[in-house]
C-alpha cells in the first residue's frame, strides 16, 4: 500500500497539485503571521512627550502599577477631565487640533477609546507590576524614555531571555533570591 501512495504522489499532476497547495498554505501562513503580529494603529496619536513635559506623572493616567498586576489605560473621562477645561479651545480662539477632535468625538458619542496595548506579554505569563515597583524599578527601566516619544514604542522585545537577564542581575550572588527569581512558577503558574 505504501508503494501505491508513492506511485500516486509521483504522478506529475499530483506533484503539481501538492506544490500548489503547499504554496497556498505557506502564503496563507505568512499572511496570517503578518496580520497577527502587526498591531492595529493607535486610535489617537497620543503625544506622551508633551504630557510628560507638562509634568503629568505616569501614574496619573496608568494608576495600577503600585497596587496590582495591570497598569491600566486611561478612559475618556480621565482625558476629558483636563481637556474639557482648556480655555483656549473652549472659547474658540484656537481651533481644536485633529487628535483632540477625535477625543471630543469619543466623549460626545459616549464610546470608549480602543487603546492598543504596547507592552504586552502572552497569556501564559502572569506579569504583575506591583513587585517590580516594590523592588525599586522605575517605569523607564522597562518602558524606555516614554517622555521623549509621541506614541509609545517598546524599547526592547519583551521575551523571556530579557526578563531572565534582569532577574539574574538583580539577584546577584544571593542564592535564595536567585532561585526565587529564576523559578518557572514565578511567572508561569
Amino acid at each position, binding site marked *: *500500500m505504501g508503494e*501505491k*501512495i508513492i*506511485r*500516486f504522489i509521483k*504522478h506529475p*499532476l*499530483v506533484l503539481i497539485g501538492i506544490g500548489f*497547495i*503547499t504554496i497556498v*498554505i*505557506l502564503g*496563507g*501562513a505568512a499572511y*496570517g*503571521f503578518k*496580520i*497577527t*503580529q*502587526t*498591531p*492595529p494603529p493607535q486610535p489617537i496619536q497620543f503625544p506622551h512627550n508633551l504630557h510628560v513635559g507638562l509634568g503629568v506623572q505616569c501614574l496619573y493616567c496608568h*494608576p*495600577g502599577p503600585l497596587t*496590582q*498586576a*495591570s497598569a*491600566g*489605560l*486611561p*478612559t*475618556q*473621562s*480621565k482625558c476629558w477631565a483636563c481637556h474639557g477645561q482648556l480655555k483656549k479651545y473652549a472659547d474658540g480662539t484656537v481651533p481644536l487640533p485633529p487628535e483632540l477632535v477625535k477625543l471630543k468625538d*469619543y466623549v460626545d458619542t*459616549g*464610546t*470608549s*477609546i*480602543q*487603546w*492598543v*496595548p504596547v507592552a*504586552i506579554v*502572552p*497569556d501564559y505569563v502572569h506579569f504583575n507590576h506591583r513587585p517590580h515597583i516594590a523592588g525599586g524599578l522605575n517605569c523607564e527601566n522597562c518602558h524606555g524614555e516614554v517622555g521623549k516619544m509621541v506614541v509609545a514604542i517598546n524599547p526592547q522585545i519583551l521575551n523571556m531571555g530579557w526578563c531572565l537577564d534582569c532577574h539574574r542581575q538583580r539577584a546577584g550572588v544571593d542564592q535564595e533570591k536567585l532561585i526565587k527569581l529564576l523559578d518557572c512558577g514565578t511567572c508561569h503558574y
Partner: protein
Amino acid sequence: MSDKISRRDFLKLAGAGTAVTAILTGCGPESRYVVREPYTKMPEYTYNGQSTFYATTCRECAAGCGLVVRTMQGRALKVEGNKLHPVNKGKTCSRGQATLQGLYNPDRMQNPVRQNGRGSGSFSEVTWEEAVAEVSSALKENKPGEIAFLMGLAPDHLFDLASQLTSALGAETPLRYGALSMFEARSTLSEAAKSMFGQACLPYFDIGHSDLVFSFGANFAETWLSPVAYSQGFSQMRQGKPGCRGFLVQFEPRMSQTAMTADKWIPVAPGTEGQVALALGRLVADIKGIALPAALSAVDVDEVAEVSGLERGELAKLAELFAGAESPLAIPGGSPLGQSNGFDSAQAILALNVLAGNLGKEGGISITPSTGVNEDFYHHPASMKEIAALVDRMSAGEIKVLFVHGVNPVFELPAELGFSKALDNVPQVISFSSTPNETAMRADSIFPDHTGLESYGYQRIWTGADRAVISGGQPVVAPYYDTRATADVLLAAVKLAGGKAAQTLPYLDEVEFIQAQLMGLVSTEGGLYGAGDINTFWALWQQFGGWWKAEPGLIAPQVPGLSRAIKIAEAEFEGSGDFHLLAYPSPILGDGSGANYPWLQETPDPSTTVMWNSWVEVNPKTAAELGLSNDDVVLITSPAGALEASVYIYPAIRPDVIAIPFGQGHSALGRYAQDRGINPAELFALIFNSTGDLAFAATKVRIEKTGRQRPLARLESRVGVYGDGEG
C-alpha cells in the same frame, strides 16, 4: 493514474495535509493584534484587564446559596459558590451557574410597560413616574380588603416590605407560593414538624453525619429544599469518614436522580410510603426490644407488605439495617407528602427518627435557628388551600388589584384551580416580573424588577445550614436596562399615597429599608464579624455576602413521646385511568423559571438524557402491553385535562406509574421556553391532603397511543439501549 486511490489512503493524505497546515499556521507566536476596550467612565476601584468579584445570593430558588460573581469592566462573567457560605460552601447547582443567562436574556422586560389588552403582547411604554403613580393609586383607591399580593419564595426582603405594607394598610398578608413548594409539600412538612416537635419549620436533616439514610421520595440531589447543601451532606456521608461509607435507601415509585446515587431503590406503591415507615418502625422496635409505642401500634406488617408491594422479608432486612445503624435518619420528601394521606405519612416518617433517637443529635434532625430578622412574619409558603381561597375571592370579584412578584401562578398552579380564569375578574393586575412569563402576559401593567444579579436583598435560611444564616444580596453589575427594584417602586408609591403606610415605611430606598431590618444584627453576639455601626456592618455584609454565626449551632427539637397512635388513611386517588401520574420538578429546569436559559435547555436530563423537550416515562412492561415504543406520541387523559407527549421507555419506574417532568410547556417566557414540551400541572386533579396541600401525586390517568411519532432529542445512543433499535 491507473490505480484508484483507496478511501483509507485518501484519509491518510488528508490527515498529513491537516497536520502540516496546523503546524504552519496554528503554532505561531502570540498575536500582537490586541485592543483594549476600557469604560467610558471607569469607577475608581476597577482597572482594565482586572476582575472584580462580588459576593451575593442566588435567586434561582429559595435555598439562598451564596455566590461570588466575577465581573470584568462592568459585565458579570462567571458565577461560583461562596466558599465561606454555610449553606453551599463554595458550590453551586446548574441553575446557579446559569443565572447569568437571566441577566443577559434577550427576552427580558427592559422598561415599564402597560399592555394594550391582556394577553395581546403589545405594550406601550410608560415612565417610572407614571408606574409609581399607578401603583400608588392602586394602593390608595382600593379598600384594604380588595388588595392582594402574590409573591414567590425569594427574595425575603421584599416579602418583609410587602408584609409591613399590607399590615399598615390593613390588607391581607402576602401569600407566598412556588411550584417547588408544591412539589416538596413544604406546608405539609412544616405542619408535620409542628405536630411532632411543637414548632412549625422545615427541619434540618444532618445527612453528612448520618451513616444510614432512608429517604422517602426526598430528591435532595436535585431540587429538594436546599439541594446544594444536602448534596454536599450526601457526599460527606459517603466519603467524609474514612472506613465508613454511609448507606442510602430511596423509597419512591420512580427512580429519580437521587435514587440513582442510592445503594438501594425501593419502588413502593404510591401512597403507601407512610405505612412502610410505620411497619419499619414496628419491626425496628421489635429488634431493639423497645416496648411498642402507641404510635406504631396500629400497623399490621403483613398488610403493609401486601399493599406496598414489598416482600415481608425485605421489610425485615431494612428494619435490621435501620436498627443496626449508629445514626440512622429518615427523610420525608415530596412525593409521599403529595398524597391524600401525606400529612399522616410525614408524621410516620418523622416518627422513625424519634424511634432512632436522633433528634437534635449529629446525623439527625434539628431545627435551624433564626437570625431574628423579622422572624415574627409568616414566612412559610402557602398551602394550596390558601391559594384556592385567594382564587375564590378573585373569582367572586372581591379582589380589585393583584400584585404579582417572583412567581408565575398561571404556569405553576394546577390549571384545574382556575387561577387563569379568575384573573379575568380582577380589574387590575400589576406584575413586577423581569421576564415576559405567562402571568405577566395576563397583567395590565408590567413594572419589571431587576434580575437577581442586579439586585439588593436578603434571604433567610430555612433549612440546609448548620447555624443561623441570613444570606445577603447586592448588585454585581449596574442594571442594564430601565428596570427598577420593586422595593423602590413600592416605597415611592407609599410615599406618594401618604397616610399611615407612609409613616410605617419612611425609608428613602431599598438599601435603607434593608439596613433598618438588619439593625438588630449589628449588636448580635457570636457573628462571623463584629461591627460598631450599621455602615461598617453593611460593608462587611457586602464583602461576605450575608451574616451568619461563627460557630455551628442548631436547636434540638422537643422530643415527643410516641403516645398518640399514627393512623394512616388509605390514599385516595382521582381519575379512572390505570396509571398513577407522577410529575416531578426537572432536576435541571426546577420550577420552570429556568426554561428560558438555553444552557439549561441544552443540559441533558440526568436520567433520560433528553434535552429541549418533555417526555413521558413508561415502564418497558407497560409499553409492551400497550404496544408502545420510544418516541411514540401518547394522549394522557386525567379528570382535569389531556396532553400529548412522546414516550421514553424507562425501566426504573413501576409499571403502574408514568412520570412527566415539570418545567417545560410554557406558552410565554421568551423564545427559548415558548411552545416546547408540556406542563403536567394541567393534568392535576384537585385532591388535597389534610393540611390543605395539593395531593399532586394522587391523579390517575389513561394513556392512549395516537399512532404518531415525534423523536426526542437525547444524548444517549438509540442503538443498544434496552435492546432498542437492534436487529
